[in-house]
C-alpha cells in the first residue's frame, strides 16, 4: 500500500492504522521507519515533488520482492511542504519473522533513497531550493549526455 499526502504525515495515526490492518495477519514483526524534517542549514522546512507513475511501479516491484519472502511493505510520503520537526516519510515492513523484516526495511529504505522519483527542496526565506548536494542520480542516468 502506497499513500501520498499533501503536507506532513499524521504519524501516530498512520502507525496505528497499519498495525490494526495487519493485527490478524499473523506477522511476528512490524518495523516502521519514520523520517522527520531536521533543523539544519537554516531551513524552515522541506518540500517534495513526486512523479507518481514511476513511484507506483517502483513500489509495486518491491511489494513483489517482499511477497516472495512472505512479507509486506507499506509506505506513506508527503507532497509539497513539510515544516521543521514534522514527518514526510514512513515505510514499514511486516513479516512472520524478525530477520526478514530487519533486512527488508534496510534494503527498502536505501533503495528508496537511491531510486524513488521524489525531489527534495529546502525551504529557505520563502524560496524552494533544490537539494542538489543530497540528491542521487538514478541508476542508469546520463544516457542522453555527450
Amino acid at each position, binding site marked *: 500500500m502506497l499513500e501520498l499526502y499533501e503536507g506532513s504525515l499524521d504519524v501516530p495515526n498512520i502507525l496505528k492504522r497499519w498495525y490494526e490492518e495487519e493485527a490478524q495477519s499473523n506477522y511476528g514483526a512490524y518495523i516502521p521507519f519514520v523520517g522527520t524534517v531536521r533543523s539544519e542549514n537554516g531551513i524552515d522546512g522541506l518540500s517534495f515533488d513526486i512523479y507518481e507513475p514511476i513511484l507506483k511501479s517502483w513500489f509495486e516491484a518491491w511489494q513483489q520482492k517482499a511477497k516472495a519472502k512472505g512479507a509486506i511493505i507499506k509506505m506513506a510520503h508527503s507532497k509539497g511542504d513539510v515544516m521543521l520537526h514534522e514527518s514526510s516519510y514512513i515505510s514499514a515492513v511486516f513479516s512472520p519473522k524478525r530477520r526478514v523484516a530487519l533486512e527488508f526495511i534496510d534494503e527498502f529504505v536505501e533503495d528508496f533513497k537511491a531510486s524513488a522519483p521524489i525531489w527534495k527542496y529546502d525551504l529557505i526565506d520563502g524560496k524552494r531550493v533544490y537539494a542538489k548536494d543530497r540528491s542521487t542520480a*538514478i541508476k542508469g542516468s546520463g544516457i542522453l549526455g555527450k
Partner: protein
Amino acid sequence: MVRVEFLGPIQKEPLELDITNLNELAKILQDDEELKEWLGNSAVAVNDTLVSSLEAPLKDGDKISLLPPVCGG
C-alpha cells in the same frame, strides 16, 4: 510526435518532437543550453518505464520523461 517531459527541478516546459528514437532526442537536447547541467545526471523513462540505452525505438504518442537526481524521505 512524442512528448518529452522534464521532472522535478528541471524548469522546462514539455516538448512535442517528431523523432523516432532516443538518439535523435539526445542530439536535440544536447543543443539546449538550459539542459546542460541535467543530461549527464538524469534518468530517462519511456512511457513511465526507465530505459538503460538509447536504442529503444519510439512510436507516435510515446511519453519520454527526464528524471534528475532524487532525494525522497
